[in-house]
């Protein structure tokens, strides 16, 4: 890994995966619903509150998915539908108004309230868009109230973030005609956001805005001069809504690993007419540092076989990173759904022999897993311990959305997440008592 840094977008693998046959399955899914996104979105948007309109199951899901509960009073809650709401004894809209008023009285610092739809609210056709308008009016615009759906019948896991950000798109101020800007879309850890700001600044790209912003009152502008760079692969609907407001989508791999980060930054640099020399000058040092940090982990990962069960929607970019930069062999790369428009660059980098699967029939997928026995399986929390008990090493996929993994400085951290279960197995030794 001591070769000089390539300065251009990486060459696609022979053929890539754009034309590969994809296994499509239908059956039981072991995936969170879109409500789960609240767990990280409420930490990012520090002046926003998320009110799920749903059932006790929804409340239980969010607190369980969070793994540990947050010690401070959280910036999310559930308005739990009860029998009297469903039996028509109470007017759901009046009830919702009452709950929202109660909430806003308790948390006067909230600037934006998200009404989050759930499976039950959608099945009973509770019109949250209407409710959001009505409530915004009744609070005289003091609070922005928007709605989106995180329901399991409509969304899987990270799609909740897509729906949330898409709901903000109509709220974004316009970017004046004559101006250009770069808009980075997708929740990034604050530390990663700051690193990217520094890199864009050194490249001479600006102004750079982020969606979601750290404060919901500081929404970024969008217009025909907006270049759109996605930080996460699951934001197709948000991207299309921004394109409809004039933004231009920059096609790029996602900033995972050195190669992905280079390709991602390069897409922005090209679009802002930054010369190769300048690009090289800015990226060479951090890219070389990231490669050095990665080398150690590559020794552990190279040659190991890995399977992804469909979950976070990060599976394809991560498989690409692990295959190309860490030398792993993807056995099966499952994804809840495949949004080709968002993954063109990624699919062209992935080795054409990689087996992709879309959707899920859990039992059949586990049958394949058990017969193929990869060295590492990326899966949800419900499956990890049972698979470990069957002798399969696992990596929880939810950690990948809760951990800073984007960019040069985190490339090695990302690889380390996959090393840890393997290293742990190496370390542990138990004698048989006889």
């Amino acid at each position: 890994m001591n070769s000089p840094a390539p300065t251009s977008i990486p060459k696609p693998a022979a053929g890539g995966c754009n034309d590969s046959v994809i296994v499509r399955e239908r059956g039981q899914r072991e995936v969170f619903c879109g409500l789960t996104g609240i767990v990280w979105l409420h930490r990012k948007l520090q002046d926003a509150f998320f009110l799920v309109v749903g059932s006790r199951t929804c409340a239980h899901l969010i607190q369980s998915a969070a793994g540990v509960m947050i010690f401070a009073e959280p910036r999310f809650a559930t308005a739990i539908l009860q029998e009297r709401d469903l039996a028509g004894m109470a007017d759901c809209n009046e009830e919702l108004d009452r709950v929202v008023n109660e909430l806003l009285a308790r948390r006067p610092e909230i600037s934006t309230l998200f009404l989050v739809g759930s499976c039950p609210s959608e099945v009973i056709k509770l019109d949250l868009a209407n409710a959001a308008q009505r409530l915004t009016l009744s609070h005289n615009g003091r609070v922005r109230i928007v709605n989106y759906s995180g329901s399991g019948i409509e969304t899987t896991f990270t799609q909740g973030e897509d729906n949330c950000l898409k709901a903000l798109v109509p709220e974004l101020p316009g970017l004046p005609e004559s101006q250009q800007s770069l808009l980075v879309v997708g929740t990034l850890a604050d530390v990663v956001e700051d690193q990217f700001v520094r890199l864009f600044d050194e490249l001479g790209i600006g102004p750079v805005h982020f969606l979601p912003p750290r404060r919901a009152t500081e929404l970024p502008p969008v217009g025909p001069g907006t270049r759109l760079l996605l930080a996460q692969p699951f934001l197709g609907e948000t991207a299309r809504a921004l394109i409809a407001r004039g933004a231009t989508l920059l096609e790029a791999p996602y900033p995972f690993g050195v190669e992905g980060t280079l390709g991602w930054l390069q897409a922005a640099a090209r679009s802002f007419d930054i010369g190769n020399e300048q690009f090289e000058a800015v990226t060479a040092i951090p890219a070389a540092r990231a490669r050095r940090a990665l080398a150690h982990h590559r020794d552990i990962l190279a040659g190991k076989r890995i399977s992804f069960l469909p979950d976070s929607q990060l599976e394809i970019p991560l498989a690409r990173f692990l295959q190309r930069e860490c030398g792993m062999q993807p056995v099966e790369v499952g994804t809840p759904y495949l949004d080709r428009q968002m993954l063109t660059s990624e699919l062209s980098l992935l080795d054409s022999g990689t087996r992709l699967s879309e959707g899920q029939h859990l039992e059949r997928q586990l049958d394949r897993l058990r017969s193929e026995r990869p060295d590492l399986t990326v899966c949800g929390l419900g499956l990890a311990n049972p698979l470990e008990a069957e002798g399969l090493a696992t990596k929880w996929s939810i950690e990948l959305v809760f951990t800073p993994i984007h960019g040069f400085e985190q490339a090695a951290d990302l690889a380390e997440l996959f090393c840890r279960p393997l290293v742990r197995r190496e370390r542990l030794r138990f004698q048989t008592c006889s």
Partner: protein
Amino acid sequence: MQLTLWTYEGPPHVGAMRIATSMQGVHYVLHAPQGDTYADLLFTMIERRDRRPPVTYTTFQARDLGGDTANLVISAVREAYERFKPQALLVGESCTAELIQDQPGGLAAGMGLPVPVVPLELPAYSKKENWGASETFYYLVRTLLKDLEPPERVPGSRPRANLLGPSAMGFRVRDNIEEVRRLLDRVGIDVNVVAPEGASPADLLRIPEADFNICLYPEVAQTTCAWLERTFKQPFTRTVPIGVNATCEFLAEIGALSGIQVSSSLSAEDQSRLPWYSRSVDSNYLTGKRVFIFADATHALAAARMASEELGFEVVGLGTYSREFARQVRQAASDLGLEALITDDYLEVEARITEAEPELVLGTQMERHIAKRLGLPCAVISAPFHVQDVPARYSPQMGFEGANVLFDTWVHPLMMGLEEHLLGMFRDDFEFHDGAAPSHLGGGPEANAAARDGNGVKTMADGGAGPAWDHEAERELRKIPFFVRGKARRNTERFACDAGLETITLETLYDAKAHFGR
């Protein structure tokens, strides 16, 4: 609609999952949308179970609605039966499926499967997890046993009892079963069936062979025990053996039910260290410690009794989220001169704890959070709990060993007696100061200083209506150790108010101390 931040119980279908997951040879087909599979992680992560819960989810999507969700149920039931070959099948729905009214239980029952099918109707918008567990266990037992004849008892053999109620995600189930088994063995009673934990449908069929039932977790097993009493004339125990006294009563109760003389064979002093530990001089500092208790009904009742009778604490708050058992908790609270807190509103519990200014909180995972915010010591005594409450070591709550464990668990978070005195005398030692956590616990420095020094507590002065503190009195107040400072502040303000004083001086502070001295 009910505004909810954290919920003590999950929906009732999670209760049904607890029964299915506890058992062998049972499978549960749940008509539910994507996302409801989150519940698997309760079992595989919090309890570290090494098997997936035996649950098949139909995973319907928006595009299936109005189409053929019913067929999805039928194919899921068929596939689950073919693959897992269970001895009995539970079929039910989660909250969303309840709204689309496919009646999955009825559909499955009509499929002619060669095993008992138990349709579960658990109303998700009015009932909760423990109720769901209780109903599921009851329906399963009733379906399997309803046509059985009460068996003839063979005279001369040792009396036999079933242990009913231990289930997945119940508190300290693994060790409580073991401890109660040992206890029964020592008095000469055999355990016939333990259920649902570890039992198969075939085991459930043997339930009537026991002489009586031990209702170990009433939230889960009381309904079933009552049915077995009516149907098979099996009496059941009413005492849950948590604490030394309750364990003695429990032994007397099973003695009466089995005709065995147990009182002479076991004395509490010989069996548990708690009575001596509690009487030993070191424990003097535990006297009158203010404790707030909030848990499921069984654990709240047991803790209240233990705290007051066996540790000499003062119970300053008692409550439960188990509405089904509210009456018993109200009675226990009233016996202690309190009004019970019956609620599942986390915010209300937090407000009441803040108000009561306890020195120790005994509660659930939620109360641990509240206590942490308020800077109060806390021990978890009941579900809901988190992964750290499923210890690797043997740590039952029931029986005599359970009483030992509880003594340690409750006393450990507290400042030790001598340390408390030293802090009272020398408050300005730079290492051994006021804001420090108990020295045996480490902990972050000053983490909760604001809450600890009573400033986190709303006082009259904050409202502007009450008397004001003068500088000297305020400074003196700071010299009072943090764990009683909030109380001192409150008492002084109340005293000043009652006396019609506008300013609190040094004199007022000591007058109030003399007035309220405990």
